[in-house]
């Protein structure tokens, strides 16, 4: 047996650990190094999420480049109070904090919630809106599901990385409910109506808007929790924050804020009481009461809190990756066989399938399978993810197998034929096994790539590794520790795979004598 150089098993494990540690170290270093935001000049750059939609921030249907909404008008009022011009910077909602820290804009405000984590890491203005987390159910369930306690053993949806999601996860074990995290606030209500969920918990403004769009739902009057929208600034800009607080108070006092909120239909009794109390206290928000004990305690404590959930998410990642790979391999082999042995019609259909799957984004395919097909078949998110990725990767696998099948030397097939094996047996006993050896390296490559692509299924409410890291990132206001952990987990999954593939290849591809 000739000597072939390869990384010994011990060293591969070592490398994994070292890489993971390096990632972690970089993460921790960055966590403690906030980037001060630029905050001067004649313009006030403010960030918001246009996808949030009315009444928060939306593009004016008549002038798509112009933003409107109550957040837009309050930002405008703040800017003019500071003697500046408001300039809008679009940003996705769950990266508002990071963008403020990076200095992309000075203040973020589009339904930004006041949370303990945000207060620890960022600067918050005084609240300008008080909202309630409310429970929305199907009209038929009005009397059955009045509170979370009525939803024992059921699935409750919400927008990921929000106060509502934290509320649901905190109650998950006590009330035995399954929180389901969405990337947007429209699909939870559609899934509620279609029966994939039994309730949705979200801010009353969002609930009211969705009930107008999705018929057949009702919202229970009893709020589950009270929250506040604030503006968020980078740490270190205290002076500007105080100026902004003063402007906000002045605009509340002179009725500007009330006029804006009324115009957008979100001024109510709760708001009137809240503003009165805030003005009376001279700007000290009720939520300035001491925070619940922070879940801090250094990096190790944070790690200890993250690890169990990340482990669980890693299991989901592994299950989905292995399941969809198995499907892709089986289906890919059938497609490849059909393209080589099938008639003209079969071949055209299969080519069409392969080109469709390779030529359109897998994200779109996942959406179509989960939401588009919901009218005919309501697949659970896990199965929709597994099938969606499997169907997509089957196209790539089939191309690999087709190439490998065609690369099996003709002499091997002729020898099998002269022995009296049927075409099917030639394929099963000679051509297939030999092609498999040729296909193994690109297959491993695809499997590693699938492992990472499985993060895409978070759009279908599946909480896998990346999604879990995202949730921690949103809760802690920083991507770096969760991101480093997440990366380390993926490496721990993919490096052994690469190692295994190398060993198999060596065994099969030994030089001929």
């Amino acid at each position: 047996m000739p000597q072939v150089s390869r990384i010994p098993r011990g060293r591969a494990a070592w490398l994994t650990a070292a890489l993971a540690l390096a990632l972690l170290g970089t993460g921790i270093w960055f966590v403690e190094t906030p980037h001060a935001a630029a905050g001067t000049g004649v313009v006030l750059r403010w960030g918001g999420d246009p996808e949030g939609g009315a009444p928060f921030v939306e593009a004016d249907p008549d002038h798509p480049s112009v933003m409107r909404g109550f957040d837009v008008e309050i930002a405008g009022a703040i800017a003019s109070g500071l003697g500046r011009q408001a300039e809008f910077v679009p940003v996705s909602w769950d990266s508002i904090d990071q963008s403020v820290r990076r200095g992309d804009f000075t203040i973020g405000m589009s339904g930004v919630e006041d949370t303990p984590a945000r207060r620890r890491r960022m600067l918050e203005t005084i609240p300008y809106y008080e909202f309630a987390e409310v429970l929305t159910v199907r009209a038929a369930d009005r009397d059955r599901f009045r509170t979370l306690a009525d939803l024992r053993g059921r699935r409750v949806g919400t927008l990921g990385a929000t106060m509502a999601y934290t509320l649901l996860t905190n109650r998950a074990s006590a009330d035995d409910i399954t929180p389901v995290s969405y990337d947007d606030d429209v699909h939870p209500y559609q899934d509620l109506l279609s029966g994939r969920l039994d309730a949705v918990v979200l801010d009353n403004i969002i609930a009211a808007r969705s009930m107008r769009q999705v018929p057949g739902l009702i919202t229970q009057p009893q709020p589950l929790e009270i929250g506040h929208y604030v503006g968020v600034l980078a740490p270190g800009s205290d002076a500007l924050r105080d100026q902004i607080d003063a402007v906000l108070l002045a605009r509340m006092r002179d009725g500007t804020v009330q006029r804006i909120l009324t115009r957008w239909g979100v001024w109510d009794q709760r708001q009137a009481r809240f503003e009165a109390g805030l003005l009376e206290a001279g700007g000290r928000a009720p939520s300035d009461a001491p925070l619940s004990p922070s879940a801090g305690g250094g990096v190790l404590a944070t790690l200890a809190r993250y690890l169990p959930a990340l482990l669980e998410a890693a299991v989901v990642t592994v299950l989905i990756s292995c399941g969809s790979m198995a499907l892709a391999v089986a289906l890919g082999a059938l497609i490849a066989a059909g393209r080589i042995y099938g008639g003209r019609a079969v071949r055209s259909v299969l080519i069409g399938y392969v080109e469709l799957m390779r030529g359109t984004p897998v994200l779109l395919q996942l959406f179509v399978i989960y939401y588009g097909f919901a009218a005919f078949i309501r697949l659970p998110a896990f199965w929709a993810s597994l099938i969606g990725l499997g169907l997509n990767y089957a196209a790539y696998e089939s191309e690999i197998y087709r190439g490998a099948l065609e690369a099996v030397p003709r002499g091997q097939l002729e020898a099998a034929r002269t022995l009296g094996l049927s075409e099917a047996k030639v394929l099963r006993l000679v051509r297939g096994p030999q092609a498999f050896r040729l296909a193994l390296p690109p297959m491993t490559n695809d499997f590693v790539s699938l492992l990472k692509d499985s993060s895409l299924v978070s759009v279908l409410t599946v909480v896998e590794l990346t999604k879990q890291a995202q949730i921690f990132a949103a809760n802690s206001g920083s991507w770096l520790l969760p991101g480093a952990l997440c990366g380390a987990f993926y490496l721990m999954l993919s490096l052994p795979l690469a190692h295994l593939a190398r060993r198999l290849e060596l065994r099969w591809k030994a030089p001929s004598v």
Partner: protein
Amino acid sequence: MTRTHIEPDGAAILDMRGVRLAFGVREVLRGVDLQLARGTFTALMGLSGVGKTSILRAIVALDPFTAGTIEVDGVQLQAGPLPRESRLRALRRKVGMVFQLHHLFEHLSATDNVTLALVHALGVPRAQAEARAAELLDALQVSGRARALPRELSGGEAQRVASARALATDPPLLLLDEPTASLDPARREELGRSLTTLASTGRTLMVTTHDVEFARQFAQRVVIVADGQIVETGHPREVLSQPSHAATRALLQGALRH
């Protein structure tokens, strides 16, 4: 056309008549007539590229022929496109082939190469098939390499395993393409003796070869091919001592130069 009519008596196991075979416009076989008597050992000879291998490939239905007929032990092959494999079952039982480059199945051990057809084409129980393989490998003196993969075998070993594979299903006609090409003289001698033994038990053998000495020593009959046709046939001593055709003389001169 003097010696072509000196045919061995007895019913022919192979009967080729007017077989033509073309690759595109290039005609490789231009009307081949050939009969083989049962239990004989024939050497098919000729310079490179004259169509020897094409004759074998036409008989085992790996290449389609354009005109003529081939009959193997009662099984008829017609000119035209190759039939589907399912319609060739009868033929496959009648004729075995050992390829020049062996084409052993790369992913299977020597034993598994030999048992594959027994188990999967004839449905012989595995234990029985393995006993048969052991017997054949032993008879061909490669039993020590039963577990080896093809890439671990020497050229001579691979050839004997390939012969065992072709013999496993016990076809009455066995074709070997250039079996002497990669053998040293001692091995060649061994091969010749085992082929003679096989022929003496009633099996019919035909080998293609350039090796005049080998043919002279072991074959009962030589068939000379030139330019896609059979130009001379007869007993090796006659044909190879008093060649009547220019192609045979060219073959003998080539052999002298070696």
